[in-house]
């Protein structure tokens, strides 16, 4: 079959991801982890991994199962593998979180939870990368956005490999050879995960999605290519160079500084590309998802500027928590929520009305949403994320918890709107289910004609 069809388990990934997102915000509002606990404490590790694995990685995996086939105009290698992968990932995340709690003695240490987490997450992500990798491999040579995804997947492999090493060392299984890497390799794990896997993939995906939904020309010019090569070079410097430097000199500072310089070039070019997309768009009045994506992109820009200022003032280690918060919640989560608000209605529409398009009157995709209602939740979300960042910078812990509680409210509002669109609740009753339409299930997509 030529072209792309619906990815069956994408919505299950989205649902699991959103639950983790809500859970993470509840933990922050309750004062669990940073800033109440130290940034390297087991509590903070729990919080960080609920966000990075539970929310952002599951969201990204679910999105890529649908989006990679669109990028390469080929069907997904397997529409079945995502389900066992999800089971491995969810149980692996559960084991990992409990394993962290073992580290500060909240859970008895007699169960090998961290090694179990390493195994389960290793298998889960291998299934994901295998599935997406085979899909990309069949479509070589790759288009530009697909190359970003390929680099992102390689970074995921590096992130998971380091995470497995850390988990085995902390779980008391691994050889002492990895002890040095575990002691000093944390920045590399974070850069590979947050920078390579999540940010770089999101950049590649955003190139295509923004162009598509704003009717802007596809970018494949020189600056987009340099962005790809500079970003990939920065990641190789940070990951390969960093690991080599640690094993040779016991210190990765130089490799990370070089990576940062190249990475900055990539981010600067990406920023100018994105501005160009917004300016060159043919569609003057853009949808909510594109407007909200602009807030997420602004958050990325602010986080980059903040990092440069902190480095110049020698205050990076003091404010790294605030910067990571802005990147995770303003940039990655903000972009994720904005694009979910387009992807969920679109997939629902295609599943429900695809078979009868052109045969009977059907609603438009935009009839599945009420943007005016969602707008206030998105605005609340971004405002409190920015306030929360400010509170972290200023060290007002209680005010930060209040911001986290408001984020939770805003997220709840957005999720409620997503469920309504999936349930066709905002479609006029006489249009909702014409003859031959297929009422979608909440958590998975079925293609009834296969």
């Amino acid at each position, binding site marked *: 079959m*030529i072209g792309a069809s619906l990815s069956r388990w994408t919505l299950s990934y989205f649902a699991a991801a959103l639950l983790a997102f809500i859970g993470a915000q509840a933990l922050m509002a309750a004062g669990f982890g940073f800033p109440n606990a130290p940034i390297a404490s087991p509590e903070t590790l729990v919080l960080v991994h609920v966000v990075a694995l539970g929310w952002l990685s599951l969201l990204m995996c679910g999105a890529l199962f649908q989006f990679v086939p669109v990028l390469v105009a080929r069907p997904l290698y397997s529409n079945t593998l995502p389900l066992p992968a999800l089971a491995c990932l969810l149980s692996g995340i559960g084991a990992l979180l409990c394993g962290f709690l073992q580290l500060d003695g909240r859970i008895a240490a007699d169960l090998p939870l961290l090694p179990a987490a390493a195994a389960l997450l290793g298998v889960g992500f291998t299934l994901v990368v295998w599935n997406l990798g085979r899909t990309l491999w069949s479509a070589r040579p790759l288009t530009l956005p697909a190359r970003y995804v390929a680099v992102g997947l390689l970074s995921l492999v590096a992130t998971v490999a380091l995470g497995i090493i850390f988990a085995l060392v902390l779980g008391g299984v691994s050889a002492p050879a990895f002890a040095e890497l575990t002691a000093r390799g944390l920045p590399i794990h974070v850069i590979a995960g947050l920078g390579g896997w999540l940010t770089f993939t999101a950049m590649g995906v955003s190139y295509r999605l923004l162009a598509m939904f704003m009717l802007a020309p596809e970018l494949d010019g020189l600056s987009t290519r340099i962005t790809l090569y500079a970003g990939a070079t920065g990641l190789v410097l940070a990951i390969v160079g960093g690991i080599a430097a640690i094993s040779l000199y016991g210190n990765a500072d130089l490799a990370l500084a070089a990576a940062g310089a190249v990475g900055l070039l990539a981010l600067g070019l990406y920023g100018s590309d994105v501005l160009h997309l917004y300016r060159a768009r043919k569609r003057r009045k853009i949808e909510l998802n594109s407007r909200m994506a602009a807030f997420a992109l602004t958050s990325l820009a602010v986080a980059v500027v903040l990092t440069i200022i902190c480095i110049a003032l020698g205050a990076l280690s003091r404010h790294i928590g605030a910067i990571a918060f802005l990147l995770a919640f303003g940039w990655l989560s903000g972009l994720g929520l904005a694009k979910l608000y387009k992807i969920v209605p679109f997939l629902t529409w295609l599943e429900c009305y695809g078979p009868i398009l052109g045969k009977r009157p059907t609603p438009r995709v935009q009839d599945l949403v009420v943007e005016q209602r969602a707008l206030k939740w998105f605005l609340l979300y971004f405002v409190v994320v920015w306030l929360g960042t400010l509170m972290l910078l200023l060290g007002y812990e209680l005010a930060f918890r209040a911001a986290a509680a408001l984020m939770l409210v805003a997220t709840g509002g957005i999720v409620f709107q997503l469920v309504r669109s999936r349930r066709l609740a905002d479609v006029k009753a006489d249009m909702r289910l014409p003859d031959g339409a297929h009422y979608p299930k909440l958590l998975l997509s079925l293609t009834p*004609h296969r």
Partner: protein
Amino acid sequence: MSMSFVELDVRPILRAGGEPFEKIMQTIAALRPGQGLRLFATFKPTPLFHVLGSKGFTHEATELDGGEWEVLFTPSDAAKPNGSVETKSVGDDSAWPEPVQELDNRELDPPEPMVRILAATEALERGQVLSALLCREPIFLFPELAKRGHQWRGAFEPDGKTYKVFVRAGTAKAAVA
């Protein structure tokens, strides 16, 4: 068994601003069993990979100097797509009638181009053809056309930005469950 390749150089046609699609399809239709196509083009003909892929050809693309490409299309019975009826007989492909309708969907938001093409296709008589201009390859349209038993041909125009698709109304409308 050794594979022999029929050579087709469409670079002169492309350089003159022409559209080599018809010529390529004629050459493909004239291939004998066990023959492949060696194609030379001034750009990488990605859309052609899909079109010929749907006809059971695998491809191997090599970049030449100056951004030009050489592509080997090899017939492979294993690559036959399941359930799609868009290219039932090779003789079908030699000549399609002129389009009875031409849509320009370049300024429409996705998925509106797909909706309009499907609606217009449903209104066609069997065997009639319509054409549509789009600003990207209509990825989700193709499976839907295949399910409904319609045939299509599509390719980017030489500008590399406009995608032109031809749809011929088919017969297997009962394919929709």
